[in-house]
Structures are given as structure tokens and as C-alpha cells.
């Protein structure tokens, strides 16, 4: 096993990796930007090294600097976390060329799976179901029309090098085809320097269900119980759960085996995730492979009892996974709520600030993976994730109720957060029944992401506390004015030390 590794990330995922390393006796080197000098991942690391100014491309995206630090500090391997350089094939190759270990799949595999058209072709060839559409790319309206004839409208025109919705067009009617093909291709060309596009059937109200895979260098491939990540806003997951409320033992096995086939077809190594879309008849279709640890990996850990980060480290150091596929089974149910520094009242607008109050929930079945602490100022430069709140319980309903309990214990003052949004969803009937899709927020909530959850009784209690507080403050001010320079503090004087009564 490694003696020392570098973690090329920040926030909760850097903390997560540091914790795994500490438990395995591996020393950690943190890297940070100027604004992150006091960040939690720095405070928990054994060593820490400044990369540069706050913007990502001068710090966390600077592969060269990071490799340089790793070599200087004698780190044997680099864990990229998620985001930043984690799915950058060049970085993975550079790390390997520098004689270090990249904790993830080889650069070539990242490259192959990053090209969505190539990945799609690979999946078709190895029998993994894909969304109906073109086998390879399309070049013009005529080709597009041919596929539309086969699969019917609506369709999606997508960029081969795509990501983040760029170079993507939804086509609802035939007269939109020509401009969609032209538009998608030119947008892809300007965004990625690669104008290749392809066509796929646009699924109505699909579910997003994904399979965690784990592969070592000794030819062992494993799949894990599915994660359902259908609750999304702006195409970004906000609530994930495992197992999915609609997947049974048979479907789990079928999806798992498809994911392993995808892994084998691409020569996959280390942890990864095969994402599928699932239609209302429970047909599943390959979407893409995320060639890294997912944000939502903890729910898989909660239901299987296996530590995915530790397994990543074992695989990267050449170790063998001694798992038995049949024994990787879900026990109970786990949910993750992503707590973002965003205002659900204002369409999830980022809301940064200093965490004046920050108290996490605790007790049975609650896990908090966070990268902040009370007093920390959330920087504007990076992803506004404060923490991931994860609960586990015997069944789905208990896990939801436990999550509500934990959300009620969670206290954050200093920035807005998505806590109120999560409470709203977790109490909502369709969600509780498991009747969800990626269009949940639009279709079920009607786009509303905030509701008043306070009672008149709570409001009155708040008003009473504010009134008494204000009265005592006024009394203090008056007392000081009367006492002049004597520095009398009536607020304190009124009560003997140790007495906290107002």
C-alpha cells in the first residue's frame, strides 16, 4: 500500500479521501488555492502545499503544478476526487508518465469513455442496451431524418465530445431538424473543437439509475446495487437513494451485468459509474460512464457496508479485491441530500457567506460528509456544495423520516442552503411513493422549490424571543447611557455568573 498520497481536490471529497487514508495509515498531502488556506481539507491533512490564486485554472486545474508538488513531497499517487482533473485523460497520462500512480482508470479508458459517440459504439458492440438512435455519427439533415423515421420524434441531437448540455438540441418536429443539426454541430465545434454529433431518442420522464462498478488489475469486475438519482435541478443531482424504489432483484442483476459488460468492453480499472436512463416500462438504456468516484458514492457504502475509497486505494496500489459478487447486496435503504449554499427561494442562486452558525445533525443512521466548519467562509470560486447529508435505515420510509429528522437538526446561518427544499421534497407524496423522474421538479412541484414550512405558533415563538431579546438590549443601552463612563453592563449585572436566564 502507498505510504503517502496527494489529494488533488478540495471540499468534502478531499476530506473524505483524507479520512480513508488516515484509517489506512497513509500520509496525505493537501493542495490548496490562496482562498482555501484555512479550508477543512488543509486542516486535516498531514502536509499542505499552496498551488496559486483562487481561480481553478490557476490552482486545482493546474495539473503540472500538482504533479510537481507530488514529486517534491514524495507522494506515490494522486487521488483526483470528482470534478476538476478527475476525468481529464491528459492529466491521468501525465501522472503516469511522471512515474506516479493515478487513482482511477488509465488515461486511455477515460479518453474512450469521454467521447460519447465512441462510448456508445463500444456499448452497442458489447450488447449493452443504448437509447435508440444512430449507431455512429450523423453529418446532415438526410441522415438525421432516416433515424427519425426509425425511432420517431422527439429526439436529441448530441455532441460526441459533449457535456453540460453544450452542443445539445431537442427536436420536437421535423421542420426543426435542419437547424438543430447545424446548430448542435457548430456549437460543439466552438465549445470542444470537435463538431461531431449523433442522434438519440428523447425519453419522456425517464428515471436516472446508475450502477457503481469496481474493477481491479487482476481481472475482477464487480457491480454494486443501483443508485437512483432522478431528483435533479439544472441536470444536476440533488437527492440520491439506494436501492431504487422500482428495481427488483432481477432488474438489479440485469443492470449490474450490463454495467460489468460495459466495464469489460472498455478495459475499465478502479471505481466508476455506468449511468442509465430507465423508461416507464423499466427498460434501461446506457447513458454514459463516469470514470471517477461519484458525489453520491456514500449511499452505496451505507447499503453494502463496503468502503469505496479504500477499495480505490487497494486497486490503485495493485491489490486484489477479494469480494464475492453474490454477497454485494443492499441492506436497508440509504438517501443522500446534497446541501448546497444556494437559495431555493431564488431558483437555487448561489449564496456564499461566512458560516456564522454551523451545527451538523448526529445520532443513529446519520452520516455527514462535509468540507466546512463554523466560521468558514464559502468561496465563490468553486462548487457551492456545503456537505452531503446521508441517512440509512431499515427501509425507504424510515430513511426518509430519519433524513427529515436530521434536516431539522441541521443549523446553518450565514448563507442560504437547500435544506428547506429537501424538507419539501421529502414530505411530498409522489416522492414518498417513489413516483419520480428527472422531470420531478417541473412536473410534480410545478417548478416550485420553496414553501413556507412554519406554523403561526412557531412564528409567535420567534416574535416573543425577538421581543425579549430586544427589550434586554434596550435596557442595556439605557443603563450604559445612564452610567456614563463606568462601563456598567446591566444585561450581565442582572444575573449572577452562571445564571443564563434573560
Amino acid at each position: 500500500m502507498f505510504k503517502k498520497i496527494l489529494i488533488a481536490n478540495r471540499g468534502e471529497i478531499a476530506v473524505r479521501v483524507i479520512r480513508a487514508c488516515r484509517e489506512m495509515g497513509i500520509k496525505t498531502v493537501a493542495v490548496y488555492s490562496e482562498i482555501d488556506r484555512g479550508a477543512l481539507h488543509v486542516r486535516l491533512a498531514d502536509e499542505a502545499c499552496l498551488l496559486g490564486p483562487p481561480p481553478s485554472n490557476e490552482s486545482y486545474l493546474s495539473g503540472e503544478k500538482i504533479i510537481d508538488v507530488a514529486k517534491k513531497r514524495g507522494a506515490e499517487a494522486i487521488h483526483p476526487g470528482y470534478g476538476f482533473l478527475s476525468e481529464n485523460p491528459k492529466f491521468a497520462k501525465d501522472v503516469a508518465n511522471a512515474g506516479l500512480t493515478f487513482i482511477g482508470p488509465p488515461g486511455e479508458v477515460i479518453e474512450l469513455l469521454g467521447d460519447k459517440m465512441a462510448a456508445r459504439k463500444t456499448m452497442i458492440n458489447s450488447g449493452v442496451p443504448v437509447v435508440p438512435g444512430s449507431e455512429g455519427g450523423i453529418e446532415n439533415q438526410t441522415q438525421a431524418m432516416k433515424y427519425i423515421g426509425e425511432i420517431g420524434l422527439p429526439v436529441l441531437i448530441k455532441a460526441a465530445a459533449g457535456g453540460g448540455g453544450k452542443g445539445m438540441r431537442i427536436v420536437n418536429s421535423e421542420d426543426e431538424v435542419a437547424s438543430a443539426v447545424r446548430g448542435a454541430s457548430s456549437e460543439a465545434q466552438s465549445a470542444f473543437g470537435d463538431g461531431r454529433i449523433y442522434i438519440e431518442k428523447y425519453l419522456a420522464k425517464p428515471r436516472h439509475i446508475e450502477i457503481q462498478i469496481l474493477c481491479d488489475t487482476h481481472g475482477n469486475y464487480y457491480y454494486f446495487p443501483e443508485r437512483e438519482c432522478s431528483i435533479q435541478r439544472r441536470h444536476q443531482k440533488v437527492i440520491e437513494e439506494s436501492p431504487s424504489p422500482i428495481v427488483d432483484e432481477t432488474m438489479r442483476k440485469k443492470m449490474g451485468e450490463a454495467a460489468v459488460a460495459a466495464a469489460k468492453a472498455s478495459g475499465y480499472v478502479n471505481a466508476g459509474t455506468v449511468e442509465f436512463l430507465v423508461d416507464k416500462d423499466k427498460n434501461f438504456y446506457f447513458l454514459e460512464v463516469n470514470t471517477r468516484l461519484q458525489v453520491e458514492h456514500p449511499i452505496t457504502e451505507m447499503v453494502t457496508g463496503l468502503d469505496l475509497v479504500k477499495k480505490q486505494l487497494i486497486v490503485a496500489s495493485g491489490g486484489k479485491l477479494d469480494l464475492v459478487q453474490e454477497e454485494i447486496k443492499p441492506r436497508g435503504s440509504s438517501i443522500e441530500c446534497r446541501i448546497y449554499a444556494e437559495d431555493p427561494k431564488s431558483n437555487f442562486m448561489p449564496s456564499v457567506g461566512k458560516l456564522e452558525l454551523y451545527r451538523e445533525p448526529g445520532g443513529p443512521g446519520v452520516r455527514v460528509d462535509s468540507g466546512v466548519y463554523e466560521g468558514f467562509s464559502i468561496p465563490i470560486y468553486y462548487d457551492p456544495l456545503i456537505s452531503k447529508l446521508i441517512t440509512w435505515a431499515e427501509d425507504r420510509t424510515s430513511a426518509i423520516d430519519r433524513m427529515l429528522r436530521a434536516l431539522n437538526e441541521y443549523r446553518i446561518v450565514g448563507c442560504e442552503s437547500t435544506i428547506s427544499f429537501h424538507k419539501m421534497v421529502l414530505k411530498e407524496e409522489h416522492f414518498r411513493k417513489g413516483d419520480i423522474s428527472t422531470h420531478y421538479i417541473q412536473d410534480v412541484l410545478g417548478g416550485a422549490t420553496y414553501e413556507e414550512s412554519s406554523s403561526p405558533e412557531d412564528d409567535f415563538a420567534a416574535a416573543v424571543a425577538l421581543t425579549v431579546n430586544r427589550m434586554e438590549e434596550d435596557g442595556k443601552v439605557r443603563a450604559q447611557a445612564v452610567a456614563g463612563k463606568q462601563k456598567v453592563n446591566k444585561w450581565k449585572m442582572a444575573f449572577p455568573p452562571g445564571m443564563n436566564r434573560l
Partner: protein
Amino acid sequence: MMTYYVEIEGKELAINVAREGDKYIIQNDEHDTSVDLFKVGDGFYSLIMEGKQYDLYISNKDGSPLIDTGQRAFSARVMNDREKAITKFAAEAAVGGALPDLKAPMPGLVVKVLVEAGREVKKGDGLVIVEAMKMENELKSAGEGTVKEIKVNAGQAVDKDAVLVTFE
């Protein structure tokens, strides 16, 4: 007995209060009760009122207090008699006033200004796009009015609460 006016989410409550030993007498139209408010720590209070217990956090950082009930957090306004009178006067004087200034809700980068001076806007019209945390956020008009001045340019970095647009 003193009277305070508490504004919570647009609703105003008038509350009479007096200290009585280590408790407080609270009176208004609906309530007449003795409450126990205990300071648990910096900003933290435990209120026991009519048997119920409330775990509250009050922040006074920015002038107007913010209160967190565990169920939700919101800004409130507390006025004594004198302040109440002043506010009433000011409100009467400002009937028909302009829209409040548009301020940056967070630090960020101005990506685009969507209006110009003199433009009439309706509630919900886009005014300025600000980028923060890699996301673009369109700031919208809070009501009807006419743009007086644009205070920023595209490409400019702005602090929280920087004035972006003023209205006539």
C-alpha cells in the same frame, strides 16, 4: 409593560412584554402568558412557552435580526414605540415611491446588462446577469418602474450588495 412591533415575513405583531422575576410576561390580542427564555449560548436561546419548547438562534450581525427556528430562518424587524412612529411617518411620505435599487445578491462577475437607462420594466423582467460559482444568474425586476441609471458594466466584478441598477 413595554410594547414592541415585530415584523415577520410581512406580517406585523404587536407584543407587550414585562420582566417578572426570571420569567417574562407576554401579552397581545391572543396571548397572555409567562414565558421562560433561557440563553443557552452565543445567539442560542431555549424558549419554553405554554409548555412547548423552542430552540432558537438569533443573529444580530447586520442590524436587522435574523432568527432561525430550526424549521426555517428568516430576517425580522423589531421596533419599539419610537421607531414604529418614525417608520409610519416615513411610509406615509414615500407613497408612490420608486423601485428599490437592484443590488448584487452575492459577490460575482457581471456577465451582461439587459436594460438601459430610461427603459420601463415590469415585474420579472431580466435586468442583469451575474456569474458566481460557475453559474449565470439572471437578476429580475421586483416590480414596475423606470430604469434611472446602470451602475456597472459587463465584465466587472462586484461585491455583495453593490448597487447595480437604480430606478426613477
